[in-house]
């Protein structure tokens, strides 16, 4: 009864992250916070990172929205703990490529669990939902790198 497109969109892993989001809490010692919202639909998150040197020491978020936006940011944060800034940026770019239908990106194992979100790329209006967290990440990196200096080159 359920359409195959819907099954690929609403994978169990996504629903599970939606119901039990990881790292959803205020981060006290954050070094950067980005508020990102989709005014059209009302999804919003605040992504909070503690960046130490060239890596993300800790990543948390608060927010509300649809299963796609909340699951994506939850999965994203699990990947960011301890991640190198350049790797984090590369992850964001790769994920964005997958959302825009890039098939090699979709096969890229480095995306890990995030590949469960591939089905979103078939739903054009929902792509923004999936990208909400990664857009916030990219903005945070830009902002932070501006301040830390140095690492910048690779990020743009």
């Amino acid at each position: 009864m359920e359409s195959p497109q819907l099954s690929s969109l609403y994978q169990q892993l996504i629903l599970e992250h939606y119901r039990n989001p990881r790292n959803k809490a205020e981060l006290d010692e954050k070094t950067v916070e980005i508020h990102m919202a989709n005014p059209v639909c009302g999804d919003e998150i605040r992504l909070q990172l503690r960046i130490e040197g060239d890596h993300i020491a800790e990543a948390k978020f608060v927010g509300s929205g649809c299963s796609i936006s909340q699951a994506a940011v939850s999965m994203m944060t699990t990947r960011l703990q301890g991640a190198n800034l350049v790797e984090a940026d590369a992850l964001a770019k790769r994920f964005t490529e997958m959302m825009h239908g890039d098939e090699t990106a979709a096969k890229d194992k480095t995306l890990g669990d995030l590949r469960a979100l591939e089905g979103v790329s078939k739903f054009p209006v929902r792509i923004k939902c999936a990208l909400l967290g990664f857009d916030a990440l990219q903005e945070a990196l830009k902002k932070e790198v501006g301040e830390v200096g140095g690492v910048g080159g690779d990020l743009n």
Partner: protein
Amino acid sequence: MYDPVRVRRDFPALDQNVNGKPLVYLDNAATSQKPRAVLDVLDAYYKRDNANVHRGIHQLSQRATVAYEAARSKVAGWIHAPDESEVIWTRGTTEAINLVAIAWGLDNLSEGDEILISVLEHHSNIIPWQILAARTKATLRYLEIDDEGRLVLDDLESVLTDRTKMVAISDVSNSLGTINPVKEITRAAHAVGAIVLVDGAQGAVHTRVDVQDLGCDFYAFSGHKLCGPTGIGVLWGRKELLETMSPFQGGGEMIHIVDRDESSWASVPHKFEAGTPNIAGAIGMGAAVDYLSNLGVEHIEAHEKEIMAYAMGRLLEVPDIRIYGPSSLEERSAVISFTLGDAHPHDISTILDMDGVAVRAGHHCAQLVMKHFGVSATARASFYLYTTKEDVDRLVDGLGQVTTIFG
């Protein structure tokens, strides 16, 4: 006998498949579909009469002007305006409200004066007043709503004071469907000398409105929600008020004599209609009210009541559904806002869309209402003259899918 299935056939857009299923269009509060009668009038205008209005002596310009002004008079009739020159064409409700906020508001408000609106309003009936309040240092006050999304009027008398200069209220809420007692509010507002604007975007759509009976000073509504084209709407205002007001925008059509430093204005309504208007849009809106009148508004109303009763009954059977707004059907228009378990409204909308069922998900330009109910969004099904019981059944079936996925 009013037969919605026959009415449907007048609307070409309803006759299509979406994601392989026949379209069920339940997003009428956002915009309605257009009957062939309106599309034919638009087409005929462009193919025969198209010319700029009010400035030409030649045949086409005459015909365009006559059709354009005839549309004004039709729309005046739709809301029982006593005088067709009280009907000002705008892009829609939003522009109509902005027109009043600027052309009336800037000259008539100052520090300490109050504007009263409600938590139930669409952003288009909030933001213009926020901006006006900021510019004039007037204070913006709100009527509250209760748990069923109804205006709390117990303290109306205390909220309305002689500082209240403007009361701007919708006759029907787009997010919850609440029907507001605007006549009563108008009476109370007039008692303290305030001007009353009614946001009729959802009001003049399902039925004819009688602005004289309402007693309000301004009434704003949009063509696109009442079977008409996009880009056209109306501000109705009482003539004495309109005549004292400053113009809105400056340009062609709205002037009398232009000198280098100063100009004088044309009379009402042209004073408020600078530039080439949406001529085809106005004529199309005229055709839309003709279409609705010909069907008979009493039949449309009766049909919508029936659909609402049926839909409410069926939706209340859906497990884990939460419906917002008045529980009494007497107090609501053809809109049902709801959430379902922990499925987010966007997810509901996506799942329904895969089934060919179009509903809206989001804040419905009513963030204050969402805040009131502690949600960031709802799903909203809104019905119109062509909605059938089968459409409602398809909606309920689709919600079953949501439960399968999210349940």
